[in-house]
Structure formats: structure tokens, C-alpha cells
């Protein structure tokens, strides 16, 4: 659908001042005598999008009132253009000929004496044509404005920066609720089996057991007192103490004291050392 020649921009205020460019020269108006060189005639034809476009051009060019178009001169002019084009054997779309017939029909109806009728709303024979011309002109101007809107890739580009993805591995997400459900499931199963007694112990004791095991991790003797953090306060100290007792009970740690009131040492049970 691309035209071989660059058309002048169609602007709302100045419809088709420059019809087309022929060899770089603007074709500003059609020759008055209707002689159009064969090259220009082709251009002329392609400059219009159809009979409505050509009619609009003729009306606007002659500064005629579109609401009260003098049908006789308009029809005559239109037919002359159509004839000129037919004479040079240009392939003329059927719509141009159809429009010629419509114009002639309107012109003849205009010439008929109007029958005196009480109906004052007798329709003007031109009404339908005028409506079509106005609607087409409106869409033609709308098309020019759409064409002028900034458009992606022609007038601007969309930004899309690279996403550096490879670095981060997507890890499963776990919520406390998931953890709780998993534990409940285990308890349920354990109860059904009846073979295990899985009770809930003081978590804080277990936490301190882990903490103490970490402190003893290298297998060295640690002074008993240093396993306790006085900042925990009495309840914390009691829990820490319970943790040590539990570790002793489970034979995870050894507690030694050489004599009464001597420092007490704690170390991982011989088989407990991480690096053993």
C-alpha cells in the first residue's frame, strides 16, 4: 500500500496543499486547464484515497460550503477529472465511476421542481453525500493525527535491561506454618503407630544443648562456668544447667572435677567429637 511518492503531511488545517512531489518538485495545484501530464496523472490518481477524497479536495480547494455544495459545477469538475483519467487508460477504480453516477443523480434531483408538500422536513438530495463527505473527512483527519502520535520504535523505544539471573538460585520457601504442619503430621503418625512416645520437651533446653555442643565442638576441656551466660538471668541459667544435665544423661558430654571445689571441666564425650 505504500505510495511511490512521499505525500505531503495531511494536516487538519491545511488539507493537501501539496498534492504530491514529481521529481522533487511539489505539485501544488492542478493545472487550471485540466491538462495533466501523463506522469502526473498517475500521481494525481494515487494521491487520492478514493472518490470521496477527490470530492473533498475539489470542495475544499474551491472553498465551497460543504453544506450547500453547488452540485452542477462540482459534478462537472469531477467528471472532467474522471474523463481525463479514463482518456489516458489509467486503471480507474469502479468507485470513481459509481460516484459519478451518484453525482449526476443528485444533480438531476436538484433540478426537479419540488412538489409542494406540507412535510417541511423534505430531505435535501445532497444530504447523504454531505454526511459521507463529512464523516470521511473526519476520519481522514483522525488518521493524520494518529500518524502524528509518538509511536514505539519510530519515535521512542521501550527500555528493557538485561536481568542478571544466573547468580541467584531459587530456593524453596518454607514458612513456620509449613514447619508446624510437618511436625503435627509426625506426631499424628507417631500416635497412630503407638510404638513411639513422642512428647514435647522444653525447647529451650534443647536449644541450649545444641549451643553447648557447639561450644565444645573442638573437643577441648571447657571450664564449666563459661558454659553459662549470666545475662540470661536465673531462668536462663536454670535452663542451661538442665541442658548440661541432659547432655550428661545422654552421655554426650563428660564432666570432670579433680577434687572438691576445684574447677569443673566439661568436654565432649570421647566418641562425640566432630572431627574424631
Amino acid at each position, binding site marked *: *500500500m*505504500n*505510495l511511490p511518492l512521499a*505525500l505531503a503531511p*495531511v494536516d*487538519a488545517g491545511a488539507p493537501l496543499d501539496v498534492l504530491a512531489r514529481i521529481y522533487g518538485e511539489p505539485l501544488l495545484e492542478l493545472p487550471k486547464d485540466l491538462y495533466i501530464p501523463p506522469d502526473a496523472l498517475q500521481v494525481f490518481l494515487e494521491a487520492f*484515497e*478514493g*472518490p*470521496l*477524497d477527490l470530492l473533498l479536495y475539489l470542495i475544499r480547494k474551491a472553498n465551497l460550503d*460543504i*453544506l450547500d455544495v453547488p452540485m452542477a459545477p462540482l459534478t462537472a469538475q469531477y467528471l472532467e477529472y474522471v474523463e481525463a483519467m479514463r482518456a489516458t487508460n489509467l486503471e480507474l*477504480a469502479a*468507485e470513481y465511476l459509481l*460516484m459519478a453516477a451518484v453525482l449526476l443523480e443528485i444533480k438531476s434531483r436538484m433540478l426537479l421542481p419540488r412538489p409542494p408538500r406540507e412535510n417541511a422536513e423534505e430531505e*435535501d438530495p*445532497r*444530504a*447523504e453525500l*454531505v*454526511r*459521507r463527505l*463529512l*464523516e*470521511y*473527512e*473526519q*476520519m*481522514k*483527519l*483522525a*488518521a*493524520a*493525527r*494518529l*500518524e*502524528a*502520535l*509518538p*509511536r*514505539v*520504535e*519510530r*519515535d*521512542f*523505544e*521501550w*527500555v*528493557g*535491561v*538485561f*536481568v542478571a539471573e544466573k547468580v541467584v538460585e531459587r530456593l524453596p520457601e518454607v514458612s513456620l506454618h509449613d514447619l508446624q504442619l510437618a511436625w503435627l503430621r509426625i506426631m499424628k503418625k507417631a500416635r497412630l503407630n503407638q510404638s513411639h512416645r513422642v512428647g514435647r520437651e522444653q525447647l529451650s533446653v534443647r536449644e541450649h544443648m545444641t549451643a553447648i555442643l557447639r561450644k565444645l565442638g573442638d573437643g577441648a576441656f571447657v571450664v564449666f562456668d563459661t558454659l553459662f551466660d549470666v545475662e540470661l538471668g536465673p531462668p536462663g541459667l536454670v535452663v542451661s544447667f538442665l541442658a548440661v544435665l541432659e547432655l550428661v544423661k545422654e552421655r554426650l558430654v563428660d564432666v570432670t572435677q579433680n577434687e572438691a571445689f576445684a574447677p569443673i571441666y566439661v568436654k565432649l564425650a570421647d566418641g562425640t567429637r566432630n572431627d574424631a
Partner: protein
Amino acid sequence: MAPATTPETWLRIVEAALLAAPGPLPVSELRKLFDEDPGPDLVRRLLDELRAQWFEAGRGVELVQLASGWRFQTRPEYQVYLDRLKEEKPPRYSRAVMETLAIIAYRQPVTRGDIEDIRGVTVSPNILKTLESRGWVDIVGHRDTPGRPALFATTRRFLDEMGLRSLTELPALTELEKIMDLVDVSQTEPAAAPAPEEEV
């Protein structure tokens, strides 16, 4: 480790998401970025702040709101430079294509017959194919008349690519001569104002 979440960090997160997004991001999507849903209003405030920051910095890139969401795009003044890096020029559309597009945009939904009535010429199937393959128009149904002709309408992508948020932002139609006296009003009634686009 994820950056701490301060308002400044929120801005940077939204900014990074918008810069990296392959398409416009609606507010509803942007809300998913955060640990806790901040709600639409806070996200909109972040977007306004971000747009202002980029505008004030005088960059060649701006944050805009389109039909399907928010997106960064280059400013038209910079296109003359960016064009120099392009291998091929973007397609130019003929007047026939643009007039057809205008009729679909302003009078949608319309059939090919409606378009031909307005333009006064037959509409080649290539014209509609051009617009469809660009993703600007598509078939939204069929009119319940003989032959059940397809009804064409513009797409969300058309609005996005023209930098519009909704059909109501299309350039206003020219007020042509009042023709109410001459012809039946119902024939000249402009297409019903497009329904407000769902906010993004």
C-alpha cells in the same frame, strides 16, 4: 542477602523491576514485589515519585503510564540519535492503512463493510492483515447479519504502542460543520465514548 526495605529501597526495587520488565507492569503486578503487600495507593505514590525523579534528572528516558501498565521509554527527542544504531527503519504505513486504523479506533467495533462505507473504496484484505499482524487490531466478534461479518477493534497493545492509557486519550475528532439540520442525527452520532479502561 536482600536489601533492607526502606522507602528508598522500595523505590529502587520498583525502578529495577520496571527497567527490566519485558512489558508494561500494572500496579497489581508491582504489589507482588514486596514481602508484604503495600496496597495500591503506596505503589502509586512510589510510581509518581519515581516518575518525578527521572523527570527532574532530565534523562533521555521517562516513566510513562500506558494502557496495560507502567513502563520506561526513551523520550522522542532522543530518537534521532537512537535511530543511528538501527539496522532497519520501522515500517511506514500508507494513508489507506492509517485511515482504516482511525476508523477502527474511533468507531469500533466495525466490520470491513463499515470501513468501506466510510472510506468510499474497497478495503484490501492486506490492509487489515497489516494491522492485525502488528497487533494493533483484532477480531472481537461477529455481527449478527447475513454473512456474520467479523467485527474489528483496537487492542491494548495499540494503546501501549501509541503511548496511550485508554481510548479516551485518542486525539479529539475535529468538529466539522454542524450537519444536524441536514441529516438525521442518529446517522451522525459519533461512536459511543469508549468505556473507561480498567485502571492499571
